């Protein structure tokens, strides 16, 4: 304090025009520190750009026409086209010159059909990818609901009760997640084939739910541990039953945790590849094993693959932003909070 007033006095004596060479005030940042921050900012921007090049390139490729997508050297400037997305969602037929002329006469064509017509093609119907994307969505959502619901119940019990051998149980639950999928795949595959769950939605929902369950128990236990137990105790004193206290106190308090857990489960199920590859074939096949397999046949159509990949990645990118506060928690099973 004394030194600050000292500095003030010096300032008053020398007048405002003399430069401040040294400052004892903590909030006065030196130029060196300020350039340091600028350098950091620039380097960080460069790093972020470099990291995102593949994703940006994917977005660019998805709106290229086929010749632009496979141009050599790669084209950075091009005319955008919807060919990739049309190719992704539809099965098309190349039209003969005569048929093309008749089609062009028609006025009842939709926007997409007109786009296809420019390339001399007619849309026959939705492609397999539409169904696969729907499978992905159904399986991810249903398995997440199941994993989060059961996970919440178990997490609550583990958080609030002194269960004998609690640590061991929790470790057991965690260890199931550490198993390599390949180790359990073979027996589950045989099991599923025996009971008729192979290539079914319900089979995949259960599989992903179990796959996410250990994660959801651990993450939710962390969130519930943070809700002060006193709230429930007060409610119990006021005559609530345990279940009422759970529903009216714990549930509303853990909404954030539930949302974060659910979104992580969604991403895992959405991105999962190994199980989907081995446990499904046609009916319940999800998009991740399908994008490399079916889109790759018959001359690689990179703009179509890019469109499919981009569509698949966009939800995840959005969610990453929504989740940024909980990312650390999510990727470490709630082991590290901040």
């Amino acid at each position, binding site marked *: 304090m004394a030194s600050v007033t000292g500095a003030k006095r010096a300032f008053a004596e020398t007048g405002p025009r003399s430069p401040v060479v040294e400052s004892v005030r903590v909030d006065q940042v030196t130029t060196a520190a300020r350039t340091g921050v600028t350098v950091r900012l620039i380097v960080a921007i460069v790093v972020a750009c470099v990291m995102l090049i593949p994703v940006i390139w994917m977005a660019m490729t998805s709106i290229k026409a086929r010749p632009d997508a496979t141009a050599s050297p790669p084209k950075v400037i091009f005319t955008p086209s919807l060919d990739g997305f049309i190719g992704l969602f539809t099965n098309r037929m190349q039209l003969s010159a005569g048929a093309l002329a008749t089609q062009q006469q028609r006025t009842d064509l939709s926007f997409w059909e007109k786009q296809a017509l420019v390339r001399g093609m007619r849309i026959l119907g939705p492609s397999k990818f539409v169904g696969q994307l729907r499978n992905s969505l159904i399986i991810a959502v249903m398995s997440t609901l199941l994993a989060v619901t059961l996970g919440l119940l178990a997490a609550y019990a583990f958080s609030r009760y002194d269960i004998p051998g609690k640590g061991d149980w929790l470790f057991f639950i965690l260890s199931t997640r550490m198993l390599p999928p390949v180790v359990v795949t073979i027996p589950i595959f045989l099991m599923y084939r025996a009971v008729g769950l192979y290539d079914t939605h319900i089979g995949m929902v259960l599989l992903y739910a179990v796959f996410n369950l250990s994660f959801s128990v651990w993450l939710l236990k962390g969130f519930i541990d943070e809700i002060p137990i006193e709230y429930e105790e007060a409610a119990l004193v006021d005559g609530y039953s345990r279940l009422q206290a759970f529903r009216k106190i714990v549930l509303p308090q853990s909404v954030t945790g539930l949302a974060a857990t659910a979104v992580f489960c969604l991403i895992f199920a959405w991105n999962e590849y190994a199980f989907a590859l081995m446990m499904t074939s046609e009916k319940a096949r999800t998009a991740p094993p399908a994008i*490399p397999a079916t889109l790759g046949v018959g001359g690689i159509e990179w703009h179509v693959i890019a469109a499919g990949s981009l569509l698949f990645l966009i939800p995840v990118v959005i969610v990453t932003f929504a989740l940024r506060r909980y990312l650390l928690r999510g990727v*470490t099973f709630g082991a590290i909070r901040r």
Partner: protein
Amino acid sequence: MNQSIRIASAPPRARRQISDGIIQRLFIMPTLVLLILWNIFPLFYSLFLSFTQYSHSGKAAPLWIGTGNFDALLSDPKIWAAFAVTGKYALLSVLFQALIGFGLALLLRAKFKASGLLTTLILIPMMLSPVIVGMFWRLIFNPLMGIFNYLLGFRNLATAPIWLKDYALISVVIVDVWMWSPFVMLLCLSGLRAIPDYIYEAAAIDRASPWRQFWRITLPQVAPLLLLAVLFRTIEALKAFDLVMGLTGGGPGNATETVSVALYRMVFQGQARTGTASALAYIVLIVIIGVSNVYIWYLNKMKEA
């Protein structure tokens, strides 16, 4: 029944009350039953299968052959090659991830304008689907139309490296490092931000050079989290499957055939050697448990010190 003391203070509502014991069981049972059915039972089932000769595409029942599968696997040079590929891949990718991730964490450590946004942007790759990322990197690595060589300045097609052919394993490592360095960064960042400022102030008063501060304060303080990140990544690298399948499918030849890919090929392609594959799965499991135990032992030792 310790909780009953608390509940005793509630008004008597015995009719509608479900006892705590029942709630506990009701809440935990579904989870445990599912985990046992989908994880523990398969584990024992495949342990049994690993001692049998069995092919799921045939009609014959599993035939007990003792340790025959393990003997065959351990004397098979192809399996050793797959382990060598996995080991090389794990070592290289984890090493570079640790270095780059830690470097990025140091860069983003101090909060500055837009640092939160930039951190999130850098974290995007690790959230994406590995198989789709791998698939798309095929185009990026393509010598004719890819941007990788183009951006690195290899414009001459005759001399430019053909990544997925000549440097296939390195390519997989590059993509893995791109994807997962942010993960290491995220963990290191939380470690760095937890170091209290007063330690550095004390060091500055003692006139410790920034270099010395780094070695004596920053590194030891972050080490447990860095090691944890490395543990997570090593386990994942030993399981490597998705990314490899998307990028190279194990090829060219067997150049990038990791153990998981070999396992997949053994069961679902060719002659469906289900029994042998189960044995291989168990070997993988034992290796992973062994490696993680080494790390955990080291981590605990570090915490004690």
